[in-house]
């Protein structure tokens, strides 16, 4: 029986738009607009979408680095959105984050030892000697050496820095790691090293991942299930193999079709999406995708489709599949 580790219900984040001299609120940017999903223990859930679709905002809301406007986040049986700041800090021991930019997310004035030790100090784990020992152990785990502990971030390459970022996330032995574009700043040959490391660590420590990325190849490789987001909404979520073999939502189909395939003998007959992403401050009525959808019907322009189970375990928000 699989156990649900994280459940998200009707999560929303509206950023207010203010204008005028008095800074009156004139509207909302609906960065995340009513999304629900769950993550099982030990699995990797991928979240994909193009820029501005709300995938990073979602990741941050799960840790309450951004306060949700509405909705619930239930982690390991506890409702997070109503917790006090100090209780939330305790939860963050179990939920850690790996960021995209390995150059910006490490303090340049701290040694690697200090960077990795800090989460332990914050959560009051161990005494100084134990902490130092753990730092050295963790460096070995992520494929660095214990003598790296005394160095500063600028002495490392991008891939090594990302390893340090991963080591920092692992220091408190978390249950869930939210990785926001962890490999997109890395070169191809380094990217595969980091992906393999993440998989090894998952097997070793029984970790659960939420993997946020825009690269569909990477997401497919690492995820068990994948959710596709468009303009703040979840349009489709299913297992990785089903999504890539039999995408239901027209947006997913277009997104997959747009990925260039590293094989010149494959001549894909590409359906190129026309137009640009609408503004999330003023999303289209009805289905957010209807302005670019080739299968748009009348109902799509007026009614917003809800995420429904079309096939067992395969959810999509599209009127085409309404029974």
């Amino acid at each position, binding site marked *: 029986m699989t156990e649900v580790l994280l459940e998200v219900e009707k999560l929303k984040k509206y950023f207010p738009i203010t204008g005028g001299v008095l800074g009156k609120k004139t509207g909302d940017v609906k960065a995340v607009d009513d999304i629900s999903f769950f993550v099982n223990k030990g699995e990797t859930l991928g979240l994909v979408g*193009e*820029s501005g679709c709300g995938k990073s905002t979602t990741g941050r809301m799960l840790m309450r680095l951004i306060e949700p406007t509405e909705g619930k986040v239930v982690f390991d049986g506890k409702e997070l959105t109503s917790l006090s700041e100090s209780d939330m800090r305790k939860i963050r021991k179990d939920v850690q984050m790996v960021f995209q930019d390995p150059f910006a997310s490490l303090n340049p004035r701290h040694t690697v030892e200090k960077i990795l030790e800090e989460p332990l100090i914050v959560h009051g784990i161990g005494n100084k000697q134990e902490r130092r020992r753990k730092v050295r152990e963790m460096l070995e785990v992520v494929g660095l050496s214990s003598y790296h502990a005394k160095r500063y971030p600028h002495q490392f*390459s*991008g*891939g*090594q820095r990302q390893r340090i970022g991963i080591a920092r996330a692992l220091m408190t032995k978390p249950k869930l790691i939210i990785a926001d574009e962890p490999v997109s700043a890395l*070169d*191809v*040959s*380094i*990217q*595969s*090293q980091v*992906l*393999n490391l993440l*998989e090894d660590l998952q097997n070793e420590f029984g970790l659960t991942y939420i993997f946020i990325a*825009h690269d*569909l*190849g*990477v997401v*497919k*490789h690492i995820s068990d299930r994948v959710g596709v987001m468009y303009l703040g909404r979840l349009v489709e979520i299913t297992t*990785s*193999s089903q999504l*890539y073999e039999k995408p239901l939502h027209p947006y997913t189909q*277009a*997104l*997959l*079709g*747009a*990925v*260039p*395939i*590293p*094989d*010149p*003998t*494959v001549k894909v007959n*590409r359906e*190129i*999406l*026309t137009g*640009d*992403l609408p503004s999330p401050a003023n999303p289209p009525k009805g289905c957010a995708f209807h302005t670019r959808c080739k299968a748009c019907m009348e109902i799509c322009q007026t009614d917003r489709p809800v995420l429904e189970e079309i096939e067992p375990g395969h959810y999509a928000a599209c009127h085409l599949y309404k029974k």
Partner: protein
Amino acid sequence: MQAPVLDVKKLKTSFFSDDGEIPAVDDISFSVKKGEILGIVGESGCGKSVTSLSIMKLVPQPPGKIVSGEILLNGENLVPVSERRMRQIRGNEIAMIFQEPMTSLNPLFKIGEQLIEAIKIHKKGNKKEFEKQAVDMLKLVGLPRAEGIMNEYPHQLSGGMRQRVMIAMALSCGPKLLIADEPTTALDVTIQAQILALMKSLNEKLDTSIVMITHDLGVVADICQRVIVMYAGKVVEEASVLDIFKNPKHPYTMGLLQSVPDIRNKQDRLYSIPGNVPKPGSITTGCRFAARCEFVHDRCLADDPPLYAVEEAGHHTVRCFLHDTGGNGHHD
């Protein structure tokens, strides 16, 4: 045989610092035929961008300098020419588009003004003609409501539209060669697909040769006819796009191809090349890839391999001792 539009011969571009000379591009040669799309692939620091800046003669000097070699554009060597002549060549004969469409347009001027400025420098005519030409260019790159966009500022356009404007500007004087340095890296995949399709159709329509610089092998497979793979300032392999993907010879090219997660089938474990991309100038003897290569042997550490021809017919060369059959090395 037709003479190539661009013929780069033994180009070496170095940067000079307190620590001495650092060769970013070390003795590379390649050519681009008329109407051809050539891909240059490689990871950060391999010298692919410095190559393109050298061709445009835009390498910041100091600290950079083209140390030796020739860049022949339709037979004219660009290395010794004056800045004044170079200004005529840029835009008119070679144009370039950059990765960041946000930073390559001036935020203070309208799109129309920026387009007309480029045309005015290189062509004769009056304001009306310039304006008409600018609008025509915007239509050519598939922008809707071209007249309206002429009066808009860059911030009013999306990333994909800005990149289209950049392409329109680059092509406005009918260059024979377009250098595109990671033109789709900052764009989303659906927009990337639009821009790649546009570049392909313009290449066919206008017969403009394109040098496509990218790190994305998918983009290369999609658009290029011939590919050179660079590593640490050197060309390590050159072949037709089919040979690069189906019959790669250099261990680095093979590793790179296997490292990319393929959207079509799921591998259990990704192949990864051990080690890191070397800093420019850090390796001086032997093959640049030796430290990360699984086929490394003594000779690789001592000598710098020349380019060896793999197949006589298909023009496939590789810089690796594994392909030394005796007598097939070009000493370049």
